[in-house]
Every structure is written in C-alpha cells, then in structure tokens.
C-alpha cells in the first residue's frame, strides 16, 4: 500500500522513471505496455458488466441489481488502478535489472469473478424479483 502511494507520484512524472537504471530493449517496454492495456480492457469489461447488470436485469430486486452492478464497477476501478501501478513497477524493475514483481492480484480477481458469476446464476435462477 505504501509502495502504491509512492508510485502514484510517478504516474504523473514522465522523467522520474527515466532517472532509474538503464533503458531496456524497447520491445520489453512494448510488451509491458500491452500487458497494461490487456488489464485495462479487463477493467473495462468489468465496468461494462456492471452497466449490463444494471440495464439488462430490470426484474431483479433493486438491492441485488444495484449491489451487483456497483460491485462490478468497483472491481473495474481496482483492476484499472492496479494495472497502471503494476505497469510502473514492471517498468522500474526492468530498468533496474531486477526480477519482475510478483502479484496475487490475478488469483484474487479470478476468485472474485467466479463468486460473482455463481451469485448471478443463483440470483437469476431463483429469481429474487420484486
């Protein structure tokens, strides 16, 4: 968490990253950029899923519909913030010649998506409608 706050400073400072270590092969940076974009698209998909739950399950009880939609939107925000944070950490690690950072976020996100999917199936099948 403290690392996250420290990295936020770097988000808006283009030159600060370049002061660290040496510039890696540009192809590694591009691969890191594509990974960042893939995570950003994952975040966009979660946000889109949140909007879809809100718009296309109108018969669901208000609490369930809004709760699921807001949970998916929040997951999207977390995913996006983590995407840019992880991109910076990887970029810094490559410049310093360190190992790439490991993360338990993918496993966590997988579990959350699985739980949300099961909850959605149950809610739609049992039909907790108003």
């Amino acid at each position: 968490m403290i690392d996250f706050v420290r990295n936020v400073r770097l988000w808006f400072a283009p030159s600060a990253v370049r002061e660290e270590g040496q510039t890696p092969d540009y192809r590694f940076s591009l691969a890191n950029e594509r990974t960042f974009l893939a995570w950003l698209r994952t975040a966009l998909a979660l946000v889109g899923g949140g909007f879809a739950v809100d718009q296309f399950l109108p018969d669901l009880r208000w609490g369930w519909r809004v709760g699921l939609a807001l949970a998916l939107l929040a997951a999207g925000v977390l995913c996006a913030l983590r995407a840019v944070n992880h991109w910076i950490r990887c970029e810094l690690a490559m410049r310093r010649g360190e190992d790439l950072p490991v993360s338990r976020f993918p496993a966590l996100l997988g579990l959350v998506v699985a739980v949300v999917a099961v909850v959605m199936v149950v809610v739609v099948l049992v039909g907790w409608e108003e």
Partner: protein
Amino acid sequence: MSGAAAREVERDPGLQPERTRLAWRRTTLSSTVVTVLAGKAALAGGGSVAAGVAGAVCCACWVGILAVAHRRIRALAGGGVPDALVPPYAAAAVVCLVVTVVSGAVLVLLG
C-alpha cells in the same frame, strides 16, 4: 547495403509496435462499448439533469481515452524504434476510466 535492405533489418520481426498499436485500438473499442452502455443508462434515467450530466461526463472520458490512444497510435505508427509509453498517458487513460465509473455509479443509483 542498400537503403531498402537497411529498413528491412530495422523492422522488428516480432511486429511489436504493430501489436501494441492494435492493443490500443482494441482498448478504444472496449471503451466505446462501455460508453454506449453508460449512454443507455443515462437515457434510461428518465431525462433528469443529474443523469444527463453523468452521461455527458462518461462521453467526455471516452473522448479522453480516444485522445490518449490516438496520440500513442501515431507515435507507434511512425516507424523506427518507438518511445516507451510515458506514465502520464497511462495515468490519463486510467483516470478517464475511474471518472467514468464514478459517474456510472451515479447513473446506477439514480436508475
């Protein structure tokens, strides 16, 4: 070595700049889908001022993501060795997404 051969050598056989450019393009398409869904939520909001403002904010954020992607795509399409992505671009795209979600949450709570 002739000029044409020199350019062949410079070209990355893994097509990394092209793949990165297409990744940006896919991201703009994803954000378009999200914006269309947000627009539907805004229109379903019953024409209230708050829903209209939230929908307009979502559209503005979509334009922001398009602008970032456009500049990055142009840099990648220029040929040669492209510069690395700078943090403010990445942060701008993420900030646009976060603002979209905040106004989207307003739309969901209004709806």
